[in-house]
């Protein structure tokens, strides 16, 4: 028995020692030869901005607060499929960001509760468990910078959670809901009070939609997102008219067509 243990023990030490030696040898012989370049779609990944950043940029360009535009918290109970829960988790995140940047702290707290409720349905309770977010929001009423920092912390927490739990495929779906809702808010405010800066910022979102479509296509192995991708592609066609210029902006008619399609898709998502 003793012999067996000694053999096992010495083998395990040898194993670790051999692995370390291998590492050194390889480092010395490290030669970079021909490099396969990033031309294949599968070796690229697509970064999606935080809904908070988009909302803040819209706000700096004239996105004012209009009550009753956001999705009702009561609707959360009716989202019974994982797909509608993920999309509407994004919608509510965008609504919370919209309330925060407009100092509507109580509404933001209500959206936080709704997000927690949805996260429980999605088995993502840990995202909110340890943050004491409601208290932090309450303690910082009127403190714009602190409120946006709290929202940014929530984004970090969500990103970490999805990564640690191998749920990277969920991120683009949640983001789709958030992006559509932010675009919806921008489109509605612009319809109420047309604003050149806001139209420019709405146009600029074509770069995000491009990345979003690629990210969704990467996770669409089982064709679960065919319909969503098709709907987003219709919206993307609005940007085909743009010339490759930094100052490119949709005309009033073009932005109206875009707005109608955004509103339609947003209403489809929240009714799911």
């Amino acid at each position: 028995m003793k012999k067996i243990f000694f053999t096992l023990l010495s083998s395990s030490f040898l194993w670790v020692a051999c692995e370390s030696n291998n590492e050194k040898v390889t480092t010395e012989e490290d030669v970079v030869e021909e490099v396969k370049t990033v031309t294949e779609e599968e070796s690229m990944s697509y970064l999606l901005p935080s809904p908070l950043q988009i909302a803040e940029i819209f706000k700096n360009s004239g996105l004012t607060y209009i009550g009753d535009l956001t999705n009702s918290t009561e609707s959360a109970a009716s989202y019974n499929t994982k797909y509608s829960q993920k999309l509407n988790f994004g919608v509510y995140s965008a609504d919370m960001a919209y309330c925060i940047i407009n100092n509507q702290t109580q509404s933001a707290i209500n959206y936080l509760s709704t997000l927690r409720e949805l996260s429980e349905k999605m088995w993502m309770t840990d995202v909110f468990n340890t943050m004491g977010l409601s208290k932090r929001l309450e303690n910082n009423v009127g403190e714009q910078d602190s409120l946006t920092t709290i929202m940014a912390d929530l984004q970090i927490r969500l990103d970490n959670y999805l990564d640690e739990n191998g749920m990277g495929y969920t991120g683009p779906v949640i983001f789709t809901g958030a992006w559509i809702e932010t675009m919806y808010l921008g489109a509605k405010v612009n319809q109420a009070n047309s604003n050149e800066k806001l139209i420019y910022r709405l146009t600029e979102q074509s770069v995000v939609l491009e990345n979003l479509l690629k990210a969704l296509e990467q996770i669409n192995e089982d064709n679960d997102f065919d319909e969503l991708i098709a709907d987003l592609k219709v919206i993307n066609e609005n940007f085909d008219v743009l010339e490759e210029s930094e100052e490119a902006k949709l005309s009033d008619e073009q932005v109206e067509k875009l707005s109608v399609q955004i509103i339609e898709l947003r209403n489809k998502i929240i009714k799911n």
Partner: protein
Amino acid sequence: MKKVIFYSTILVLLLTTTALKLEEVQCVAADLKNELMPVLKPEYKYDSSKITRVLYKKEAFQSGVEVPLFMGEKYRFVFNTAGLPKDIEINIFDKKPSNKMKNALFTLSSVREMGKNIYTYEPEKSKKMYVVYTIPATEEENLKGCVVFLLGYKL
């Protein structure tokens, strides 16, 4: 009693060596990301992040991240390479990696310092950018790690 102590010691040693081996290849992305947060604050707010897991191969290869940036806004790119067992190259290009007219805006090898794992880049102009990781060839089996990229914004 002596036997119990003897076998327990052996068992503990076995478990420890196994744990050491496992730790060697582990990439605790959240910890690596947390190390980057102070590099953003207080000027920049967290926007998004991408953890790229790397499995070294016998041939060198590239992997990339497409980064949409909004005009006129300020950004800070932050990388943590501490989760990599072997150095990689990081480039940031202004055009698609396949575009022959692309310009390298940032090259890690030109700023790399011994013992330093955190690097930052702030673009002068905000437009879509492409982060490209070049992973060197290795003969070592199952060599893996991760690189963490975090983006901060300032409005």
